[in-house]
């Protein structure tokens, strides 16, 4: 691995850890604060506050993607295409199960993002991008 890629990997890991710590901190703080808050605008602000650190994580990932070599970019893009397909199938399956009143996971939709990230990671591993 070249020094440039090594540096990019290190930076990505640091930025991801910081983003995730910020996310957990903001989420806990927002959940605590929302108990004492009245007014719809403040509730919306608190509800959406955890999205900001996740957006930072997204920016960190995109920078990491741009720093990858061409093969790793290809593996990541193929994994993303497969994850999109699996995500659509999952959403369709859950929608049908709900429509036919088998069961509903509507309250758990905040886990759909992490689910897609895990699917992408597994696809990336299977397609040969184990190092990153």
């Amino acid at each position, binding site marked *: 691995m070249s020094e*440039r890629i090594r540096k990019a990997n290190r930076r990505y890991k640091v930025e991801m850890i910081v983003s995730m710590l910020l996310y957990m901190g903001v989420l806990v703080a927002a959940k605590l604060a929302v108990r004492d808050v009245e007014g719809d605008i403040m509730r919306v602000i608190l509800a959406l506050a955890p999205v900001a650190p996740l957006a930072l994580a997204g920016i960190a990932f995109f920078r990491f993607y741009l720093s990858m070599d061409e093969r790793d970019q290809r593996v990541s893009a193929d994994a993303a295409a497969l994850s999109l397909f699996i995500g659509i199938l999952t959403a369709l399956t859950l929608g049908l199960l709900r429509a036919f009143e088998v069961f509903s996971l509507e309250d758990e939709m905040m886990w759909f993002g992490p689910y897609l990230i895990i699917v992408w990671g597994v696809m990336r591993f299977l397609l040969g991008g184990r190092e*990153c």
Partner: protein
Amino acid sequence: MEKKWSQSDLAERLDVSRQTVNSLERGKYDPSLPLAFKLARVFQLTIEEIFSEEKGSNR
């Protein structure tokens, strides 16, 4: 031309990951033209000397 480079050495020179070098060696990945030129430059060979014409089989 024989070079006593490890995959990591070559990865460093090509500015790619070691796994990419491994995939190139095993013919599992066809490089882009810029990477193929870089490989040729590093080994001081022509692209034709590195990659055979047979589809999907480089060395």
